[in-house]
């Protein structure tokens, strides 16, 4: 009965479990995606089909919708585990908590961030996004959505013990999302004007690295406070 699980194995065990649960609970994957698609398709109906206007607002619409979709799906990240006691078990497991938390956030991103990135080019076509901007759109989403998941998870961890934490959660994490939004949309705009946008990407990349390193510790500490 020896203990011999490496950190890597523990990480993938948790990742696999979360993905398995989500696959059996398909709504978790499709709800945020559906929300994303609906918001983006409603805009041309609301503001008219002129290609100039649409291609001007396309980066903003896609990113705001992505941001809201990511926020909408966040609450589920720890809620179910909190309700059925799995969260306590995770806190008491001998594995390092930041690692466990990172596995959960990664699973969340795979389920909500990746589908969003995959569908985004299609929606960009609907919004007449400038031809030059597709690369920038994909790059900012690929770098930016993990930041949204990581930062959002801190807010979720802080509010998981509250019964109606939804409003508080948005107030807590929206300010943290704004820098990502600003740099991502300006990168796409710059790409549309054929200007270099690698500086914007570098900043989003730095945010990603920073949150990747620090957020797991913050999330772990917040979870301990929430379950106190």
């Amino acid at each position, binding site marked *: 009965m020896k203990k*011999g699980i490496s950190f890597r194995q*523990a990480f993938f065990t948790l990742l696999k479990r979360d993905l398995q649960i989500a696959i059996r609970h398909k709504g978790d994957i499709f709800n945020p995606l559906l929300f994303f698609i609906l918001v983006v398709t409603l805009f041309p109906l609301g503001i008219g089909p002129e290609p100039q206007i649409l291609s001007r607002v396309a980066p903003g619409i896609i990113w705001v919708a992505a941001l809201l979709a990511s926020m909408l799906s966040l609450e589920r990240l720890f809620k179910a585990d909190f309700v059925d006691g*799995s969260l306590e078990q995770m806190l008491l497991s*001998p594995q390092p908590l930041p690692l466990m938390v990172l596995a959960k956030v990664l699973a969340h991103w795979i389920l909500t961030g990746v589908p969003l990135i995959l569908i985004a080019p299609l929606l960009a076509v609907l919004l007449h996004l400038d031809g030059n901007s597709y690369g920038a759109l994909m790059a900012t989403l690929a770098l930016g959505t993990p930041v949204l998941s990581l930062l959002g998870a801190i807010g979720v961890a802080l509010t998981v013990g509250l019964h109606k934490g939804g409003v508080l959660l948005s107030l807590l994490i929206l300010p943290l999302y704004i820098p990502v939004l600003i740099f991502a949309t300006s990168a796409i705009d710059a790409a549309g004007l054929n200007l270099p946008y690698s500086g914007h990407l570098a900043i989003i990349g730095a945010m990603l690295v920073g949150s990747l390193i620090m957020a797991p510790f913050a999330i772990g500490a917040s979870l301990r406070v929430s379950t106190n």
Partner: protein
Amino acid sequence: MAEQQIAKTLLSANQLTCIREERILFDELSFEITAGEIVQIEGPNGSGKTSLLRILAGLSRPYAGDVYYQGEDITRNRDEYNDDLLYLGHLAGVKTELTAEENLNFNLRISGYDEFDTRGILSKVNLAGFEEALAGHLSAGQHRRTALARLWHTNCKIWLLDEPFTAIDKKGVEELEHIFLAHAKRGGCVIMTTHQDMGIIGDDILRKISLEYRFV
């Protein structure tokens, strides 16, 4: 030699005070639990049994006081303590979307074990034939047994069990008592809360820590 081992203090609580909803549940509670003891925390509803167990597990912080595991503060040495701790709260920590086997497999792996026979363990808790059943479709007792199955494959010394007998039938309670005794004999300790009378673990073996309901 044997006597020395029995007398070894595993867990000690030092002047614990717990305040919930502006009510003092217990204050300056101190006790020591040595290897081989089976301890029942008793008291009426709302007297702080679960709060005490959560404090001992390190899930909640006491208002004042410390908990020591083998002489070391558990908040300083969390990973080592967690390695030797098996806590089952009144929430089972069983995922309804997963099967009984997947649940047990996950729980054991996350506790650090890499070689085990989930089917064999499940048959010991009378879940043979239910391995593939989703935990959400199991009865309350079977759901509980899925969580309790971990007790059959563990080398943790300290077991903290919150109402382990809930929804378990008489025969199941007996089996649990046997495994508690075996665990105590191996040099572990069991700390639990329950309102149920036990048949096999008599009053001579069982140590009781009583909490009173206070109005202040």
